[in-house]
């Protein structure tokens, strides 16, 4: 058990109550003819019971320190870069988005030189385009630059 387990348990308890309510709204049906909410209702009930047990155990066991959260800034930047990629992909097209994505990760997160970052981003994005679009026919979006 770790310190954070109490909060993890609480989160899943609230989540399970919400799913129970939504499942009940979907209709539980009967044991003879189970409705669409039957299975999610009992699954969330199980989750709720387990989450409650987890909370109870944290009050009576020896809690250990959890994992360290070092380097969170860089992790956040990587997450934002991926989200940015997803949001820009259709509009800007694959080549430009991939170039910006790699450039950002190398220059901003990894703190490589700008010449290296731009060069590597160009090579990687073109190589991926050739492999996925031209060879594997993945139909990557062309975006505004392709129109």
């Amino acid at each position, binding site marked *: 058990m770790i310190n954070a387990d109490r909060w993890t348990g609480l989160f899943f308890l609230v989540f399970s109550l919400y799913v129970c309510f939504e499942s009940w709204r979907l209709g539980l049906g009967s044991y003879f003819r189970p409705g669409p909410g039957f299975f999610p209702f009992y699954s969330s009930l199980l989750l709720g019971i387990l989450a409650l047990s987890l909370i109870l155990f944290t009050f009576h066991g020896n809690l250990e320190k959890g994992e360290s959260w070092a380097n969170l800034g860089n992790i956040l930047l990587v997450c934002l870069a991926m989200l940015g990629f*997803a949001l820009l992909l259709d509009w800007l097209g694959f080549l430009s988005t991939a170039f910006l*994505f790699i450039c950002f990760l190398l220059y901003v997160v990894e703190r490589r030189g700008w010449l290296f970052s731009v060069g590597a981003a160009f090579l990687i994005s073109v190589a991926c385009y050739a492999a996925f679009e031209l060879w594997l026919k993945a139909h990557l979006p062309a975006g505004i630059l392709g129109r």
Partner: protein
Amino acid sequence: MEAIAGILQGFAVALTPKSLAFCFVGVLSGTLVGVLPGIGPAAAISLLLPSVLRADPASSLIMLAGLYYGAMYGGSTTSILVNIPGEAASVVTCFDGYQMARQGRAGPALGISAFGSFIAGTVGVVGLMFLAPLLASFALLFGAPEYFSLMVMSMTLVTYLSHGSQLKALMMAALGLILGCIGLDAVTAKPRFTYDILVLRDGIGIVPVVMGLFGISEVLLNVGATMDREILKNKIKGLLPSRQDWRDSAMPIARGSLLGFFLGVLPGLGPVVATFLSYGLEKRFSKHPEKFGTGMIEGVAGPEACNNAVATGNFVPMLSLGIPANAIMAILLGALTIYGIQPGPLLIKEHPNIFWGLVASMYVGNVMLLILNLPLIPLWVQVLKVPYGILYPIILLFCLIGSYSLNNNVGDVIIMWIFGVVGFLMKKFQLEPAPLVLALVLGPMLEDNLRQSLIISGGSFFIFFNRPLAVTFLLVSLCAVLFPLFRLRPLLARIAG
């Protein structure tokens, strides 16, 4: 006799130029994945899945399976040369493999792990060839209640054998069951938890989920982490083990192969636990157990044979019963269902080309790996020198392209991103992703069989207790849940008192 005819039919599939090419790419990528720390076989399979799904089912299964057992071969290279396991199943190899390398015996260590892996892989394939059809014909007797109970048993065993807290593993399984409900209800076609989001109407796809939970989260955990990769500068020579090395390793390889295969057949046991058991077994059988950890070749041969045999054994319940033994098998099962193929007892009868083609390709793949592995070691050493800071942007880009190209839809990329962040948080909060993935894959089947059972019995749960097989499976599940409670007895006593 049936198996012999089947395997001949399989070789007709596996030896076509197309299958050979897919097998080659699979085992080569697997070895690379095994060599590279920071990306495991589950992440790599999920990463390649969208591209591979464009091929026919037999070819894609041949390639993905090759990747899985190929990773077991590759994992030993980094364990021996860098003292960093390329993937979790090679942790044990570090103990004696790295010590052997430090004593200038990297060659025999790498050699015996390659030969041991080859022998174990082949033993595993022979076992798969005979056991899977036998188990499948037995499973034809199963009805909905037996299937429901078997799936419950599989999930509880996975949680019982999980590395951390079983309570948290069970929570993840329950979460997976809930996530598996998203989409249109199979009976009434009523949308469940879709909130008018189009991408959720067909349910949460297994591929973006596993790419997020295993691929993205693994990268996020390693971003900025300093990986001490001090590669041995000694020249690697004498890859062929000496006669004495063979004498010392023959029995450990034989024991590792058999132990690995039978543990691999059990649901929930991945290669990690099995390799530790094999190491312990070798230590027990050894005349010099005190020397283990100082460079004993038995400590390399046994576990390396074992992890390959587990990888092959894992295919038995997946192909014959449709029950994945671990998260990787759950991904492969998900891949087959995308093709509209239901793994299970009827797979061998209805799709003999896929089953026997896969089995035969494993023989071919193991030979390829033996030929590839030893000459390519200098290349893998060079690959290890690529800094992770350059490698991970490429891995992430592959994941992003892979998830987009599934349906040419940004929605899948967003789902992968969400599960990547969730997977990262889960690892930080010590919650395991494997039970979640297993439950996500089994959830819809579990629900379907539960509903069918209840309709057959007129709404009575006694149907699960009237049938001997169903009740046996449920008893095993109950034991898997209750056993850890006995370990918690002192804690419960304190709560009560």
